[in-house]
């Protein structure tokens, strides 16, 4: 199962704006992105990795 790794840019200073960004906005890069994956049919733990979203390869 896929999980999003959230990062709010440092350029956003206002705390309310940071909350909005954290809840709704996504980096959505067409390239390498940090991701969390849940091992549903195994150890049932989250693992963290980087995947290139243009090729679907792990990097």
């Amino acid at each position, binding site marked *: 199962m*896929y999980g999003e790794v959230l990062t709010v840019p440092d350029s956003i200073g206002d705390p309310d*704006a940071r909350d*909005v960004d954290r*809840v*709704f*906005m*996504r*980096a*959505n890069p*067409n390239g390498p992105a940090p991701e969390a994956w849940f091992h549903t049919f195994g150890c049932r733990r989250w693992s963290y990795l980087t995947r290139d979203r243009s090729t679907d390869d792990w990097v």
Partner: protein
Amino acid sequence: MNEFLERGVRLTWHEPKPRYDVVIIGGGGHGLSTAFHLARRHGITNVAVLERGYIGSGNSGRNTTVIRANYGIPESVRFYQHSLELYQRLEEETGRWIMHAEKGLLWLIHSEAGVRGEKRRALVNTAAGAETVFLTPEEIKAVVPEVDLSGGGNGYPVMGASYHLRAATARHDRVVWALAEGAMDAGVVVQQRTTVTGIELSGDRVTGVHTDRGFIGAGMVVSAVGGHVTTIADMVGLRMPIISHPLQAYVTNHYQQSFPHIVGSVELPFYVSQTARGEMLIGAEYERAPSYSYRSTFDLLAGCSAKALAYLPFLTDMRILRQWAGVCDISPDASPIMGKTPVDGFLVSTGWGTWGFKAIPAGGEQMAQLIATGETPELIAPFSYDRFAHDRIMADAGSAGTH
């Protein structure tokens, strides 16, 4: 031969003018519809549509051409119903045959909760102007005799359906070309094979776009880009509430009988319709993991076929001919994002996810009205970019998630 080619429609490269009043990024349905309505309704013709590939090569050429308005919240039903009615008149308005064909749409359900949900949908649709009724299993059998109500004994029998009477399909290429030609006849320039590489800002104001063919000045820049909208928004430093997910579909060989319905299940999910060529078109939901990959997978074919065959057993003897994927711009509330942004002069039409084709006429018409008047039209005001910051979420994933 294609009548558009016979007439020699000019889509070749012109030297770009140094400046346009409006530059639209993305030569798909929404971008061309915006240009078409700007030119035809508002007389704004100093407009360029920039397309990275060829027109309709993105999601406008990768969808399943379903036109429907059976959404779950009144704001959405009103918007999509308006679009459905514009589609009914689009052949007249463009003077081009788009192969528009009305087909009743049935959404089967297999649980008590689903029965309540679809009865509610019928009521919401009726109240907001779309024609939807609830059907019992016996009534479903009378409308579509091909349906196996037992689901082939898979444990999910059909317990009812919402029946959306005025749904339709149209030929996607013809929609794109009809709008492009209509816009070009009125003086709009459509530049194919032109990639936008950057957007120039002066302070907080957009002044033009950098392309692989040079700089083009612009009074206003509209992003009508599909799955790659985040790449464009990054150019002006705008954060987007979009995640890009692939969506796949496939067609079988020619079915020798007419199947004038669109049958789907919102709970499983899958959907089936027949193209104008007679092929059976089958699809399901988008991939859960985000990706920009256009790869097709065997998993989708196997899983989706198993579901479709259980309820429409006549598909068993069909062969799969083609399979494809598109990259969808999915918003957090499964509703579109249209209109102004915090960047002055930069407008977006995005968040079209898996439901953009049906919205092409209304999306373009409303965006054109916004550009011409500077005022956000009432019909699309609920779908503004700033709704997220103001906690006015238009949550309707249950109506949008499949097609």
